[in-house]
């Protein structure tokens, strides 16, 4: 089943001539992703990793790209997203960090109007071993298999995926939701996809303190998901009110504490790992 992307998904990179755009477009190609072009205004005609560079997304539209990775500076992310949506793309993945959340919110609601999915900002993207990678997850940690992962964290995802792979299991789809206050995708949307995907047999959710998405996900699992789900929650040790890197991880008024999330998951039959490394054990 196609879970957001598959081996035929044509991908472009907005901001391909930047440091990140250059490096990760190369890594994505190595992974097998069909990167068909990139943009960088004023640099049409150049090539990056053998991929042609265009001034505008409209100039690549005839190649029928379906997804974009946006890697431009935060102040320009909104324009880049609207440019992609205007050109008819259906997946907008925003790699950029520090996008104002008012911008993310505007992008998200306008994308929804047009039937476009947003991933990020400030997340590692989506990886489907053997099919397609859009984003910045390290190529080497994956193996094709039946475990789907949705995570609010980046590095922690790699840690957990790596552990899964090293234990001889493999992944069907790994989605980094991003740690921002207004992410384009949340756990429930990921769960809907994983639940419907026949390649996915088990599910891992990597949550964080803050918000109540984990609690809502637990509720959804209780009602709808028969597949095995395990979870990890980062931020147990965070003192109330202190920021922990992700703006998403502020504890407000007792709602969204690690305790409340762990309790919700356990009540939904989801085992919660004490350490990231314990995840593969719980999956067995």
């Amino acid at each position: 089943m196609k879970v957001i992307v598959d081996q035929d998904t044509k991908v472009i990179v907005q901001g391909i001539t930047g440091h990140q755009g250059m490096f990760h477009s190369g890594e994505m190609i190595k992974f097998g992703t069909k990167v068909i072009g990139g943009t960088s205004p004023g640099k049409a005609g150049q090539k990056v990793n053998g991929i042609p560079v265009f001034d505008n997304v409209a100039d690549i539209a005839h190649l029928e790209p379906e997804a974009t990775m946006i890697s431009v500076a935060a102040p320009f992310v909104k324009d880049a997203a609207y440019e992609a949506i205007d050109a008819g793309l259906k997946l907008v993945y925003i790699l950029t960090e520090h996008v104002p959340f008012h911008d993310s919110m505007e992008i998200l609601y306008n994308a929804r109007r047009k039937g476009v999915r947003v991933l990020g900002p400030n997340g590692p993207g989506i990886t489907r071993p053997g099919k397609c990678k859009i984003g910045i997850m390290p190529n080497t940690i994956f193996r094709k298999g039946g475990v789907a992962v949705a995570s609010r964290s980046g590095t922690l995802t790699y840690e957990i995926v790596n552990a899964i792979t090293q234990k001889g299991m493999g992944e069907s789809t790994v989605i980094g939701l991003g740690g921002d206050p207004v992410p384009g995708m949340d756990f429930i949307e990921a769960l809907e996809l994983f639940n419907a995907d026949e390649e996915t047999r088990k599910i891992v959710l990597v949550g964080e303190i803050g918000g109540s998405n984990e609690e809502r996900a637990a509720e959804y699992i209780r009602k709808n998901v028969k597949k095995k789900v395990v979870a990890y929650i980062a931020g147990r040790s965070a003192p109330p009110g202190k920021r922990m890197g992700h703006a998403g991880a502020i504890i407000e008024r007792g709602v969204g504490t690690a305790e409340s999330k762990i309790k919700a998951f356990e009540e939904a039959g989801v085992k919660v790992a004490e350490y990231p490394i314990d995840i593969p054990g719980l999956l067995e």
Partner: protein
Amino acid sequence: MNLYEYAGKEIFRKFQIPVPEGYVIASASELRPYTSPVVVKSQVLIGGRGKSGGIKFAKDQKSLESAVKELLGSKVRGFTVNKLLVEQMLEIKKEYYLSITLNRTERKANLIASPSGGVEIESVPESQIFRKSIDPIIGYSDFIGRQLAKFMNFDAELSKQIRAILPRLYEVFQKYDCELVEINPLVLNGDGRLVAADSKVIIDSDSLFRHKEFPKEDPERTPLELEAQEKGYSFVELDGNIGVIANGAGLTMATLDALLLHKGRPRNFLDLGGTDSTDIVVEAFDLVLKANPKVILVNIFGGVTKCDTVASGIVEAKKKYDIKRNIVVRLSGVREIEGREILKQNGIEAFSEMMPAVEKVVKFAGGA
């Protein structure tokens, strides 16, 4: 970024949200002669100023002068008072609560109001709280104000006033990229007007590139946190004795969690971010050393940031700062073998798994 009460009120004034007349002083010499009863309010970014003696009332020149003398330079719940807001005293008939903030689960702003203001809103029963999602594209519209006014049991005059305030408050929320705009209390004054007696405005730090009017300072942060922020790190001071350097917010959080579960006490949160450079590592050590922890734990999962780069950075930092205290390192992921080899050559042992590293560093720190 938190704004001081006076800065929030300046914005309110600009958007014609009624605030009491007043002025800010940083020294007694700026005080204007007494003309009518005033409130002298310590400008610190903490709640409960009243109970902590940070707010004083003055009904003559003498009491005004002594209030200023007493408050300026004093500490309110640990925060030094550098500025005072001197404001006309309101004749409080009733206190309401009003705010707009982001509801992260809904991914929409919420308008929140209560007829029971002036207290901690958390302690107000749910039945006394008006809460309305604002559609991010439609924005505020008058029907929301009519619903709110009805909930608050406002008469036609107060309904009119609040419905003039609400669109402006939402405009502030939008124009200044706010996480929160809060008026607590919104006071019904003796003259029948609704007046914002306090202000709490939190601006999304990520938006400061388009709000150049605000200095890049966050009074809630320690000097070391500010220095780290300036240098581009996510850094939070904590009160333990184990310095922590990790990459990625989630992994850093998981590192702290693991320390805690092993009864270790982290001294800080430091996320290296996603840049692959030895300088970033060296500078991170500089920051952590300034926090003076007993031991240092480096926990890296190599991806964009490669393990050999981090190893080289550690070696460089150890020399540059002549670090004698124990450094426990865990390297895994991209170039982990090369990284561990570099460290080994420089006499530093590196783990490939997180848990043994955590156990070891807690032992060094004297915990568990």
